[in-house]
């Protein structure tokens, strides 16, 4: 099931499925594309958190094409989506596995974004593919972070390596990778403590973890995933920039997309930093993870708009 369906399913719990202000954009007889319309369209786009510049690009395109004409919703929507897909254009990239030896995945992000839960979800995914997984409890800072990951490891039947509270996370990462090599596990996922991208010493610590892993296996970490909370606004751009500078992120996991936030900031991130989204988190359970499909994401951004037809 694609995540669009998962999201829609999630939304069924609520009465808010249909956002009427959006449906009202069009009447059955079509609508004149004028300043008022463009203003309303701007509002819808901005509300996705995509940011002012991408929203403006789309509105301009619609304006240029249809201004002063009476249009049906489908036609305008098609143009909006096409433009957005062009802005988002990215390969559908799941995890690149190592040719041999363990595939090492490092997970980073700001505090509370959903890193540890996303790791549990990824571990669940790999286990279901019959792979052996080692988790590295690299958050040695936050209270009970190790216990949190331990519980997940036990639930999922994954191996786990940990260190003492306050110990060097790079050494935990090192031992986790060593364990994966030693036991022949296919995947090693390293958790890290949440940190704000402006904290230089903590960002350097992250670079060190990255470096230590690279010393063990030259191509590792094979993936560096930035976990981004879908409710994040424009600060997501700064997060993507700084984390990429520190550890050369390879992609994004967009967590918490099961709420009403649209996660549109990934559009701006794609534009400015180039990071693709790889997975999407749609709940708190291990199975609540799906592959990111740009077209479906674009559809979901306008779920409000197309829901009446779909429902």
């Amino acid at each position, binding site marked *: 099931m694609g995540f669009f369906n998962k999201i829609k399913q999630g939304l069924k719990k609520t009465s808010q499925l249909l956002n009427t202000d959006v449906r009202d954009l069009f009447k059955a007889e079509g609508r004149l594309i004028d300043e008022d319309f463009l203003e309303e369209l701007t509002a819808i786009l901005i509300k996705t958190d995509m940011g002012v510049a991408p929203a403006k690009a789309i509105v301009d395109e619609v304006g240029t094409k249809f201004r002063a004409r009476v249009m049906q919703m489908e036609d305008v929507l098609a143009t909006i989506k096409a433009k957005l897909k062009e802005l988002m254009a990215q390969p559908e990239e799941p995890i690149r596995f190592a040719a041999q030896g363990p595939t090492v995945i490092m997970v980073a992000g700001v505090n509370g974004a959903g890193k540890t839960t996303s790791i549990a979800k990824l571990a669940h995914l790999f286990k279901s593919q019959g792979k052996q997984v080692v988790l590295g409890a690299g958050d040695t800072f936050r209270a009970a972070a190790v216990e949190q990951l331990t519980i997940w490891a036990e639930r999922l039947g994954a191996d786990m390596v940990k260190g003492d509270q306050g110990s060097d996370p790079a050494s935990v990462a090192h031992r986790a990778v060593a364990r994966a090599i030693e036991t022949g596990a296919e995947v090693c996922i390293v958790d890290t403590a949440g940190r704000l991208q402006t904290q230089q010493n903590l960002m350097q610590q992250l670079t060190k973890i990255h470096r230590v892993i690279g010393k063990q296996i030259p191509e590792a970490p094979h993936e560096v995933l930035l976990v981004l909370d879908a409710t994040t*606004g424009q600060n997501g751009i700064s997060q993507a920039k700084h984390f990429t500078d520190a550890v050369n992120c390879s992609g994004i996991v967009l967590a918490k997309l099961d709420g009403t936030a649209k996660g549109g900031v990934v559009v701006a991130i794609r534009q400015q930093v180039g990071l693709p989204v790889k997975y999407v988190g749609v709940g708190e359970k291990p199975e609540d993870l799906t592959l990111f499909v740009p077209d479906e994401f674009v559809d979901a951004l306008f779920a409000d708009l197309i829901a009446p037809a779909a429902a």
Partner: protein
Amino acid sequence: MFESLQEGLSGALKTLRGKGKLSEANMREGLGLVQTALLEADVSYPVVKDFVGKVTEKALGEKVLSSLDPSQQVVGIVHQELVDLMGPVDHSLHLKPSTTVLMLCGLQGSGKTTTCGKLGRLLKERERKPLLVAADLQRPAAIEQLHVIGEQLGIDVFSEPGAKDPVAVCQAAVKHAKKIGCDVVVLDTAGRLHIDEELMEQLRQIDRKVEPEQVYLVVDGMTGQDAVNSAKAFNEALELDGVILTKLDGDARGGAVLSVKHVTGVPIKFIGTGEHLDALQEFHPERMAQRILGMGDILTLVEQAQQKFDQDEMAKQEERLRKGEFTLDDYRNMLGQTKKLGPINKIMSMLPGMGNMQEMLDGVDAEGGMKRMGGIIDSMTPEERRLPSKIDQSRRRRIATGAGVEPHEVNELVKQFEPMAAIMKQMAGKGMRDRFKMMQDLQKGLSNPNAKLQKAKVGTGKRLSSAERAKLRKQREKEARRRKRDARRGG
């Protein structure tokens, strides 16, 4: 951003100076800039619209003051309106003499558990006896997390391992508090989505059965447009009494706070400024307004500076400046003091007009730079430090070798030092306000593309063309590859 907003406004409103009244027509462009600035600070769209409407109303018919730049006048109105919207302040926890129950709620990962600890610490400081209650039965190890925090603070934590019903846990906790003589109970509830009817009903149950005196919504300061939706839902379910905004120690502008205030109408009580349990501050609308406008959180910076700068050293320097002395030795001292403040980027983000500067420093290793400057000065003789004009080619080479830098870096430092010394001398005896004004001037000088700051041209705050962006991206990728290579080599 404030700089660019202010500059943009200056451009848009330039023709207005001394020309009668502000009108909708002559302000349109300027207000468009205000709107963009607020949207980029994550204030939600309907709130921005509403806000711009109000500002227009206020500004309309205001006479253009001949003494002021019209843009300053508009920024003044915008700033004041922001402050008014986020106020009035009420930092009180409304504690009764008898057992008082505070409840924290919010989305997943917003900072509830940490804030629970921070409030506990604050209450203990105020000589109350808090009990923290682990009512998050959802998140793995959430109970454990609160216990660790309680232990760190020496504060009691109530939990019922294995319990399934958070309502029962909270009820039992209040009883327990009375029994052991705790007079403030802080409930740490599980994070939940505002559209999860079942879990929202559970919160209502706690509210009904435990009747907390105060219910606070904990909101992540990096939240975007969705803040209106979630805050509205929590407020409708619970009738909030206050809001706590977390993670403001980063570079988020925090515009979500306006949205939250707009839909709930309840006071913003505190802000979280770090993961440590002492990082909780009372909320100040003026500071927040400046932050949202990108003016930098001056007052918080000044407070921090006052705490961290060595007061005696400051007084000594002040005295020397008053005498018109500012040498490389003093500069070296200043660098040392500045280091105590913390990461440069963080300081920059709090300084007015330093928004651009921060962008310029993006990717530039500011700490490293400061260390190098310190190293260069350390390698000079006392005489050279007093009279940098003495530094000729051979001395330059010697200093460079001593500091492990290139000779031209020595040159650049000396060149940068001259205008700085001039300004520092002028600053002596001036008030804070004038000083910041001067620093802005200094910064304008520095952002001049001729100034020798790395990447100065990139960070003008202007939008880059796609070709420029592609080039930048390539550079970044190259840099990343290089780093990876170095890492492999173990560099």
